[in-house]
Structure formats: C-alpha cells, structure tokens
C-alpha cells in the first residue's frame, strides 16, 4: 500500500521535475545541479575550478567554458580514484611496460614513444560516465557532478596497435589490462586497472603524451594516458604504467562493480529493486551542453543573444542541434561548426534569438546524432543506481531585462 503511494507521488513529482523540485522521493531525473561556484583554490597547472575533493582531487569545469570545441588544459576536469598519486615523474627515466602474452616484452621510454613510432593525433571528448549525476533522485551514490565532468582535447601520441604489433601478440591473446600509477592507502584495495577486449580496439585508440599541444597536466595523467575516443573516461587510464596482454578476463572491481548500468533495454531500474544483471558503461550517448548564456547571465530585451554550446556522441557524429527558447514548444536548428575536428570531437553550435518577453526565459538544446539518436527530456531519463549516462536536454534560464 505504501509502495503504491510512493509511485503515485513519484509520477506527480516527475511532472514537476523540470521546474526544479528538490524534495523528490523516487527514481526520477531532473536538470543536474548548476549552481556551484568555482573554488578560490587553484590546483597544480589548473585555474580555479569547481572543487569536490582534494584527496583524491576532483575538479569540475564550469559551464561557461563549453562555448569552444577545445577545452583548455588548465580548465579540464579532474577525476581520480585513489588517494596516492605520484607527484613527480621524471620524463627521462619514465618507461611503459608491455608484457603478458607477447612475443617480446618491452619497456618503452617516453623518448622512444616520441621518436620510434608513428605520431598520431585525435580530437576526442573525455567525459566521466557519472557526468551530470546530480540529475538523479534519489541520490545515486558518487560524486554529485553538474555537467562539467567533461572536456574535449586534441590528443597526440602513438597507436596502441603499433605498440602491440611491435611486441607481437601471442596466439591466444584476447584481453589487455591497463594499469595506472595511482595507489590506494591499503594494499588490499583493488588497483585501478581496466581491461579491454582486443576486438574492441581500433586504430583510434592511442597512448597520448600530449594534450592540446602541451604535456598532459599531472592531474590529467602525465606523462601518458590511454585515449579511447567515443568511450567514457573510466577507460582512459591515466599515468599509464603497464600494459598486460592476457588470454582471459580477470575479475576487477573497477570493471565488475563500478561504472556499470542495468543490462536491459532502457538501462534503468528502481531504487527499491536493482536490476540484477549489469554491463559496463562503455560508449557515450548523444548530448549537448549550453556554454552561453549561463544562469548568471543577464540579457537585454530585443537584443541579439547568441546561444553557444557543444554537442557530441560516441563518434557517429552530430547531425543537428535543436534550440528552443519557449520552453520546448518550438524548436529551431542551430548553426553547427564545420566539424573539421572530426567525429569524436565537440561540435560547437550557435543560435541567435531576440528575447521578446521580459523576465525569465529558458533556453533548451537537444542534440541529434547522425544515426538518429536524440536527447530525451531530463524527466524522461530513467533512473539507475550509479547515476551514469545522463544525457537530458540541457536547460539554462536567464533574466531578460
């Protein structure tokens, strides 16, 4: 009986979610938190960002950065899992090990990586699977990110495939494990290791030592990180130290428990009854975020306001971004950039409108991918316990004066 009331209440509240109800009770979704301010404290190689924790460091990029296709390195979000991160790495002595089921075990120096392999670049979006998690109610455990646990950069490095080719894979090689250098406080705590199936790897997967033409910042994985375009960032191992080729999948916390969604059609469940079977989050869904205006913007009545933002998916590419300035009643196609940064990059959009009413005006954006996937309204996104993969239509309400 109580349970029925619970759902009834949930249904009513779901309808009200878009206006920002905060006292909700059941598994529903609303706009992510958008009120956090940047911290006065700057972390190494970073400008002041929204800060959740110093140990491990957790930093979010503020919304107004998302007007350009490339996110500056010093404003790029930061997410680590373990308290102990190397604070100094000597680029002259650093090596990455390649071992396991390979014909020739290797230790490759940074200099060898930069000089003895073909150098390649890819521009790709790096987004935490829990980006926008604060949209989920009741709270999905984890960092309550707004929409800035993401960024886009041009990554330069060496193809993973070229390295594996040189090491030579043995016949029964099937999985590759990637270790980062972050360490837990206790030996028993599982290390942050990712495993990828060989069949998942294509030429776009690289080991990157450079980001937007500069060294990776320490907090983004100096001196080397894995880049897997189209995938959520939990697979992009930072401070990569070791690559192990195996013939079978090993059970790992960060693969088997964290970063997973319900393995059903809608990837959803209720807070009371979790779906028993789960799958890794892997590929990103289609999403857009407005960079300007922001909730702090004041725009002039009848002036030409240019709405700007970014849109992306897992690499199919963005077909259109639709903009509404009347609460979703009518939608207009925004102008897109030329897309020359490639299908894994942010596609920037812009749309000019003249605010015709004084007071509050809500701007909404909806991205549509080249395979026809489009962003649902926030309230139509189904709840999952990890708060992963939120991709609701973005909303910003501004004051027109």
């Amino acid at each position, binding site marked *: 009986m109580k349970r029925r009331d619970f759902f009834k209440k949930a249904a009513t509240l779901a309808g009200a979610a878009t206006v920002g109800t905060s006292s909700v009770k059941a598994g529903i979704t609303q706009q992510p938190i958008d009120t956090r301010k940047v*911290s006065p*404290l*700057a*972390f*190494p*190689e970073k400008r002041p960002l929204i*800060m*959740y*924790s*110093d*140990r*491990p*460091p*957790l930093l979010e990029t503020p919304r107004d950065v998302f007007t350009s296709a490339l996110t500056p390195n010093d404003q790029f979000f930061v997410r680590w899992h*373990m*308290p102990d*991160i190397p*604070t*100094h790495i000597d*680029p*002259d002595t650093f090596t990455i090990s390649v071992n396991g089921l390979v014909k020739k075990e290797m230790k490759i120096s*940074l*200099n060898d990586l*930069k*000089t003895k392999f073909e150098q390649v670049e890819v521009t790709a979006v790096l987004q935490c699977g829990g980006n926008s998690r604060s949209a989920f109610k009741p*709270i999905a*455990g984890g*960092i*309550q990110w707004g929409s800035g646990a993401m960024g886009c950069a041009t990554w330069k490095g060496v193809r993973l495939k070229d390295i594996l080719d040189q090491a030579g894979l043995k016949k029964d090689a099937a999985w590759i494990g990637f270790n980062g250098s972050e360490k*837990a*406080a*206790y030996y*028993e*705590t*599982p290390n942050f290791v990712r495993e990828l199936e060989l069949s998942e790897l294509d030429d776009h997967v690289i080991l990157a030592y450079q980001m937007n033409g*500069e*060294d990776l*910042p*320490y*907090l983004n994985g*100096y*001196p080397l990180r894995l880049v897997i375009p189209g995938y959520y960032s939990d697979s992009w191992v930072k401070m990569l130290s070791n690559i192990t080729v195996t013939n079978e999948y090993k059970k790992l*916390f960060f693969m088997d*428990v*964290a970063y997973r969604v319900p393995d059903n059609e809608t990837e959803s469940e209720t807070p009371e009854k979790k779906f028993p079977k789960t799958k890794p989050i892997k590929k990103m869904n289609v999403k857009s975020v407005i960079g300007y205006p922001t909730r702090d913007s004041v725009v002039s009545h009848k002036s030409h306001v240019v709405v700007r933002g970014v849109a992306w998916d897992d690499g199919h590419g963005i077909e259109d971004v639709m903009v509404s300035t009347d609460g979703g009643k009518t939608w207009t196609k925004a102008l897109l950039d030329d897309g020359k940064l490639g299908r894994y990059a942010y596609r920037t959009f812009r749309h000019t409108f003249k605010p015709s009413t004084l007071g509050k005006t809500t701007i909404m954006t909806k991205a549509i991918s080249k395979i026809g996937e489009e962003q649902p309204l926030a309230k139509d996104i189904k709840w999952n316990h990890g708060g992963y993969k939120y991709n609701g239509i973005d909303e910003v309400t501004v004051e027109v004066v």
Partner: protein
Amino acid sequence: MKGNMMKKLILSAALLASPLFAQVNGKVEVPYVPFPVKMGKGFDAIQTHCLMCHSFGYIINQGRQSKKFWHGKVIKMVEHFKAPMDEQAIKETTDYLFEHYGNGKLK
C-alpha cells in the same frame, strides 16, 4: 642547492634539443583543503577509517542522506575497497554520518 642549480642549467640547455622538456619540473603539490568537519561522537572513527583514503569533501558532497544510505556507503568501503573495519567501527562511522549528515530518515 648547487646540484639543483646545475640540474636546472642542464635542463634548460637540453630544452632546445630534447622533446622531453617537462612543463613542470619538480614535484607538484596538491593543495590541502580544510573542509568544514562537524565534531562529535564518532569523529575519531571517521578520522581513522574514512580520512585515511579520501578527504571529507567526498562525504559532504553526498548531501544529507538516510541511515540506510550511509550504512551502504560504509559497507561499500569495507567490501570493495577493503577498509579494515570491524563491526564496531562500521557502527560508529554510520552513526556519526547519519547524525551529522543525515536526513532524519532510517531508509
């Protein structure tokens, strides 16, 4: 000191030729953030069992939550992250979290 200076000189000389010039020389220092922590019964347990691995920011970022939520978090730390906590430590930390960061609801 002299050694460092020499190292610096060598590094800057190498800068022109070597692709290995690092943006940062020496250690980076992640700032310490003094999060507002509520004192009270059980705080010792928090200090021993939670702050060993993560800052207080992790806790307050979750907002006010039910006792069941906090208990679930503590159990996750024990089961998955292998925090060495006995029954009493689990109870003390859960009680502290619920008392100071609870929403008044058991479930």
